């Protein structure tokens, strides 16, 4: 059985690099993730960029409708996820529009933050 853990946070964006707040997050998350890794339960994990960097895609009558921000539709709920690697947002939009959820509800594209190898 695989589980996706959805990590919520109260602030929209991560603290700025070099701040004690971010250092603390890196250290504490690092410890938790390391333990999961040692136990062999971890498949993948990463922080997400700010909600304000989210784009929502809907396909209606064959037309792709792109809007800024997360879905504001309260009837929708998270039903799955895909992680894709693309050159840019335009490519990600193309793939997102192929997912059936884009026709039935919507697909949110939230950038994953790349963690530099040195961190």
């Amino acid at each position, binding site marked *: 059985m695989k589980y996706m853990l959805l990590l919520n946070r109260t602030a929209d964006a991560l603290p700025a*690099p070099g701040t004690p707040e971010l250092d603390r997050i890196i250290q504490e998350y690092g410890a938790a993730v390391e333990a999961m890794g040692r136990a062999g339960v971890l498949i993948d994990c990463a922080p997400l960029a700010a909600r304000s960097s989210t784009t929502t895609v809907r396909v209606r009558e064959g037309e792709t409708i792109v809007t*800024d921000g997360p879905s504001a539709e309260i009837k929708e709920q998270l039903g799955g996820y895909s992680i894709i690697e693309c050159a840019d*947002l335009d490519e990600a939009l193309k793939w997102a529009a192929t997912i059936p959820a884009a026709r039935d509800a919507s697909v949110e594209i939230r950038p994953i933050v790349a963690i530099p190898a040195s961190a």
Partner: protein
Amino acid sequence: MSAPLDQLIRQHWWAAVATVCRLTGDLQAAEDAVQDACVAALERWPTAGVPDNALGWLIGVARHKAVDRLRREANRGAKEAAAMREISDSGEDTSPRVTDPLGLIFLCCHPALNVSARVALTLRSVCGLSTAEIAAAFLVPEETMAKRLVRAKAKIREARIPFRIPGEAELPERLGAVLRVIYLLFTEGHLASRGEALVRADLCDRAIALARRVASLLPGEPEAAGLLALLLLTDARRAARTDALGDLVLLADQDRGRWDQDMIAEGEAILEAALRHGRPGRYQLHAAIAACHSTAASGESTDWRQIALLYAELIRYEPTPVVEANRAVAVAMAEGPAAGLVILDALAHHPQLRRWAQLYIARAELLRRLGRDGEAADAYRSALELEPAPASRSFISRRLRELEGAD
């Protein structure tokens, strides 16, 4: 600061920012660097003279400024470091390759950005307006506008919105988003809902200049030409749209002698050439409607039947109650106020129109022409409650006084 120099720099801003943005991959860095280059130009050119290739000079200087800036930044990512190496390696050639500036406007008008961010970004990055100027044009505090721009640029960076010209398949939709931003800029100036008269005229001029550039960069796209024609045909009436007191003058009551005939002729020629592509669209149809008005000697001799047909066609591209309301007005002119009122009444409860003062004004005008003065006055009062633009407000008050005087 000399005005011609300032103008020359403004004229090159778009292509300079586009080229440096392409090189650095960072819009903010590109704007900052071009800004520095413009300051250097204003210091140097008055004494040393304007270089033959002014754009090349600006790009060359901006490129060096960008390298300096990126070098100063301690925590730059690997991507920026690579970009910086590329810039440094590209040497001292005096005529740096200028990037197609269209990529920049497609970036600023990307559908993944919200519409107000697109408008603000286009004014900043493409037109070179300062944050203060944009804030003034939209009557928001400078800080609010600065935040809007910062947020939009952060999204471009974080979500990696690309700097590129969309391929053939995406072009119609993406061009539509660009044209919409230019149209919004124009209507913000033209509808005069906010701001001071001078700022608004400036927005109209900027929108027309942008439409002109986009149309010339995309000669195969009739909608780009259609938008330019529409803006020219509409703006040609600018001098006649308000009276000496700044109050709105309805099209029918305008002094047609004050319409700019050169602008009308240019708009018509551009529209005709666009229509020859045989690919109509919303802007070409709007322009065709504007042309019907421009060529009529008076309100009465206007070909309202043709205008009603054009609105009916426009609904295919723009299926909105606003277009239907405009069709109602044209039908009223062609077939009498009763026929128009039937269409307007069918729209009366449309949720999108309930807060639209123009609908009540149009209804009031038709009721007045039918001699139903009491109902007309009620409709004018409903329009007033929706707090229309100052020019519309004094027009409505005048009509109300006329109706009350007739009682």
